[in-house]
């Protein structure tokens, strides 16, 4: 490839990162806006402010790689190439949802894009990811699984059991901690001793890396290394990405009036918006223009308009099917 072609390719990749983050941002904001209509009747945990962790890390994966997530899974599903219609229909409780409306926002399963599952019990999904990755090896596949978890989830014993099991069995998994330093309204210092979260990897002689979770390219780079290690049989890695949740823990609103976190902290993180800072960088680098941004937005708005309309038009699941598929 010529140097120019290489540069163009690199630009395209960067634009994709931007587009993917902006897609998450706009969709989550639209969900927030429409939530008060009381038609999405399930708890929602939005990932506004945390777009770079999902997008940067998923960019390091192949389509046939898998991810597994938590209550805060919209961003991961979208970053992994998720189907917006299927996600929104699920949140709206409709039959065309990725779980047929049975799961809601906290259960997003879509094998076609490698979204293995999301599970609302904190850390409960972590060993599932280790097992999923065990299966790759069993079937001779060179796939990798990323397990996303919050800083709160690292306090559950099963996370440690999973780290140990993954380390002993050298399973191709990446533990990706999205550290927004809160579990609901409780800050890290009330829940854990002060030390870098990466120190948890030392307990299992596991390689680890810290990364600015609002820098999508840094996230991608660090994840790519971990994924390469896993894919080549080098076993698990722990990544800790610091980032910030902008809105309330559960629900569409802001909750800074509650006083559980300092406004200066909120403002500082908002000033480091992962989408805007990366957008500005792309503009500065001459990769993106204001017109280009508008075009991307328009594209996303169109997809969203169609997807929301699709979700709302999708029928509710037939109550007669409520007892189906209990046993396989």
């Amino acid at each position, binding site marked *: 490839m010529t140097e120019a072609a290489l540069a163009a390719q690199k630009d395209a990749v960067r634009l994709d990162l931007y587009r993917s983050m902006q897609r998450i941002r706009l969709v989550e904001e639209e969900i927030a806006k429409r*939530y008060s209509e009381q038609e999405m*009747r*399930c*708890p*929602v945990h939005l990932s506004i402010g945390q777009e770079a962790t999902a997008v940067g890390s998923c960019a390091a994966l192949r389509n046939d790689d898998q991810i597994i997530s938590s209550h805060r899974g919209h961003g991961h599903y979208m970053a992994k190439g998720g189907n917006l219609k299927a996600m929104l229909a699920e949140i709206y*409780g*409709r039959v065309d*949802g990725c*779980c*047929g*409306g*049975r*799961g*809601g*926002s*906290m*259960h997003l399963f879509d094998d076609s894009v490698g979204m293995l599952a999301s*599970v*609302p*019990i*904190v*850390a409960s999904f972590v060993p599932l990811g280790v097992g999923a990755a065990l299966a790759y090896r069993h079937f001779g596949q060179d796939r990798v699984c990323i397990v996303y978890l919050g800083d*709160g*989830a690292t*306090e*559950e*014993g099963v996370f440690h059991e999973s780290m140990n099991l993954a380390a002993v069995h050298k399973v191709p998994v990446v533990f990706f901690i999205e550290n927004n330093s809160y*579990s*609901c*309204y*409780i800050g890290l210092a*009330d*829940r*854990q001793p002060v030390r870098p979260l990466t120190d948890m990897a030392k307990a299992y002689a596991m390689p680890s890396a810290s990364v600015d979770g609002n820098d999508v390219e840094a996230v991608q780079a660090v994840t790519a290394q971990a994924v390469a290690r896993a894919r080549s049989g080098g076993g698990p890695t722990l990544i800790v990405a610091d980032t910030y949740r902008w809105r309330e823990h*559960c*629900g569409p609103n802001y*909750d800074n009036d*509650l*006083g*559980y976190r300092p406004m200066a902290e909120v403002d500082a993180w908002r000033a480091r918006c992962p989408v805007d800072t990366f957008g500005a960088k792309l503009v500065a680098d001459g990769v993106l223009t204001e017109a280009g941004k508008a075009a991307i937005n328009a594209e996303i708005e169109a997809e969203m308009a169609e997807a929301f309309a699709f979700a709302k038009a999708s029928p*509710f*699941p*037939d*109550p*007669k*099917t*409520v*007892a189906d598929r*209990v046993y396989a």
Partner: protein
Amino acid sequence: MPEQRVISAAQAIREATDLAMAADPAVIIMGEGIADPKTIFGTTDQLMEKYGPARVMEMSIAENGFTGMAIGAAMNGLRPIIVHQRVEFALLTMEQLVNNAAKMHYVSNGAHKAPIVVRLIVGRGWGQGPAHSQSLETLFAHIPGLKVVMPASAHDAKGLLLSAITDDSPVVFIEHRWMHYVKGHVPEGWAALPLDGPARLTQGDAVTVVSNSYMTLETIRAVEALAAEGVAVEHFDLRVVRPLNVDPIVESVKRTGRLLTVDTGFATYGVGAEIVARVMERCCLTMKAAPRRIGLPEHPTPSSRSLAAAFYPRSPDIAQALAELAGLDQARITAIHNRLAEEREALPFDVPHPSFQGPF
């Protein structure tokens, strides 16, 4: 007569906790979010301000660990109250509860006590879905050494919680999320109620019905509908699932010859099964109709409200079963069912009542 005070069950729970903490410095409370701005649906409001972080202990997300911690603290004289925002989180703690808490007194031949209270909240509505909505009282009620309490009113929530906290045995205290909103007359001060089993809510000779927790509220509506038709149902709110005292129920069924149980949890291997079995062991040969049970069906809770509506039994279903047991003719059965069903259709299925705003 002095005007009686009306408060919600959530307020009653908070009040009981506050009273118990004020009365005994050994009482502490441990949980995730107990001191956050939401204060567990208001049930721990102001406790941190009043008693400080040494007694209102915000916990890491480590349910099994802090349950064991509570048991160890209880062995050394503390009286910890644990709170979990959903029953499901306590599944992580089953080993501690079943092997350590339940058996500590027995195995130590009486030397140790493990006086902990484990408050569990049953989620329902607003698309809670399969892992935030289970009741699961059977899992605890099956274990000798645990006590299991399920209040259905603000009055009982306060009185039974006070007794649970002062009880020297481990008590699992199950609160239905929709029960928190229920208001009622609740006496001020130390109004403990003994953990002694079923409360008779109505008297009657036609049918005996035994319900627990939130389903007691649905059952009250059904019993009223039958009363309006001149059918007197004897209604027991079970309240204490373990140790199980069926004596008043047996006495009643000996008169009525008819029994319906209404569970908040799954029907199969549910509380109703044990009640039916115990009552049949003593009343079988004098029954006028076969006993019946209502409870959650044989599958997980779906999130979508169209499916959830098909999942939860409600007062029309209970009224219909009662009417059938009472031997009413088909026309009257249908009339009763439809009247209640219409009333119900007018309200959304996935919220408890209009004052319920939030998605949680």
